[in-house]
């Protein structure tokens, strides 16, 4: 039989008080961060994403006043890291810096990947990938329309694809125009550059690194919804009449349930990269445009692009429903 004693009541009151304080994340966020933060990157060291991640980590560490450890967790194009971040503690001390395509495209392409944008929290986006179709500078075409004309006269030409998205684009274009193009599989960005510089393929899908060779390569089409800052004269694929533009941006991804104040704090620190001189030096050397998006904009972007990509993939037959 529980007696209602004064002590018991005091005890219950104390417990209740502690409980509410415990739930008051807002109170905790004021001291966040108090220790080092781990930033996962879903690719191995040395790629575009890793580069931007390390530069971002440096800026944010300065803003937040704590060290940020960059840990590479490569695997399945970032899906392994994404799955790990989904399982991490939502306390703001573990985050994933990666292309948002791991969440808004990968699930449609890889069967084992089944998370949705709602399974994560987002603390801002910072750079965009200038995804485009690249070709050698001396090729006689400068837009998709011109490429189509050229390909019709040169059946059996080669196109370099390093992912199913890459294939999707050429397959759609080829289907609509009745082209005969051989798709050459490539394993990485460097293989793609090799193939282009070595004249092995006439056109290739590039994640943006082809801008490192302005004397040898040019962009034939911007596969994003915006024109590339490095090639403002090149029309986007949507402008040319194919509704296939898919944007990818580097995003701060956090486990579901991370409190909003923490997200805001991180996004604030991220924003500092927009104006940081060193960051700007690194990204411009790598031809990576800075396009900052805040927390709310990130959520909208994820939702919208997820729905849009789903539509594109469905129409292309990549997912059956």
């Amino acid at each position: 039989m529980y007696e209602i004693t004064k002590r018991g009541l005091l005890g219950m009151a104390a417990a209740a008080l502690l409980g509410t304080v415990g739930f008051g994340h807002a109170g905790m966020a004021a001291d966040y961060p108090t220790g080092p933060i781990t930033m996962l990157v879903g690719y191995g060291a040395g790629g575009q994403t890793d580069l931007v991640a390390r530069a971002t980590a440096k800026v944010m560490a300065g803003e937040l006043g704590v060290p940020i450890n960059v840990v590479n967790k490569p695997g399945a194009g970032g899906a392994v890291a994404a799955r790990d971040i989904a399982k991490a503690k939502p306390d703001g001390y573990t985050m994933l810096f990666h292309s948002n395509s791991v969440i808004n495209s990968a699930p449609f392409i890889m069967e084992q990947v089944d998370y949705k944008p709602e399974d994560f929290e987002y603390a801002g986006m910072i750079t965009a990938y200038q995804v485009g179709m690249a070709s050698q500078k001396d090729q006689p075409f400068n837009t998709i329309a011109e490429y189509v004309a050229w390909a019709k006269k040169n059946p059996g030409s080669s196109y370099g694809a390093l992912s199913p998205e890459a294939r999707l684009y050429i397959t759609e274009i080829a289907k609509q125009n009745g082209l005969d193009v051989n798709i050459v599989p490539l394993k990485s960005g460097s293989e793609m550059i090799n193939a282009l510089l070595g004249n092995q393929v006439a056109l290739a899908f590039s994640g943006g690194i082809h801008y490192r060779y302005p004397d040898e390569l040019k962009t034939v089409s911007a596969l994003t919804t915006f024109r590339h800052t490095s090639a403002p004269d090149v029309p986007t694929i949507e402008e040319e009449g194919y509704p296939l533009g898919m944007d990818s941006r580097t995003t701060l991804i956090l486990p579901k349930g991370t409190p909003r104040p923490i997200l805001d704090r991180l996004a604030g620190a991220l924003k500092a990269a927009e104006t940081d001189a060193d960051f700007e030096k690194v990204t411009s050397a790598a031809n990576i445009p800075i396009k900052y998006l805040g927390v709310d904009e990130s959520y909208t972007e994820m939702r919208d692009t997820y729905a849009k990509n789903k539509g594109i993939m469905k129409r292309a037959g990549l997912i059956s429903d």
Partner: protein
Amino acid sequence: MRRANIISGVILAIFGLVMLAVVIPLQIDPGPDGMMSPRLVPGMMMGVVIALSLLLVINNIRAKEPEAADAGPPISRNELLALAKIGAVFGAAILLYLLVSPLPAGAVIVIGALVALGERRPLVLIAMPAGLLAAIWFLFYKVLGTGIV
């Protein structure tokens, strides 16, 4: 060695058959048309393994030279025991890693292996893991500034 060859040949042939007949069709979808099937290379390799394993078995059954006088089984019991012990040590370490944290896991690897190999001096059993773990910690966390976990 001859008997071992026959046994390993048979096992490999069976492995190859199982892979070819069951695992490959089950685990690998046929690819889209117009491209080399993804089942081709694994299938070819298993074909090669099956053929060569059978050849191995046949050769060893037919071999006419007498077995060398001192030929015992190629794997001694001590070695198998050592393999098992190392497996047990790692098993314990992994459990500790998953349930507790990396530090005891690392310690268990060293202590477990030491004990399994017959080391009994308590000083060594404590000093070695402590020393090694401290050195690793120092190298990675301090000198290189990167966390391992």
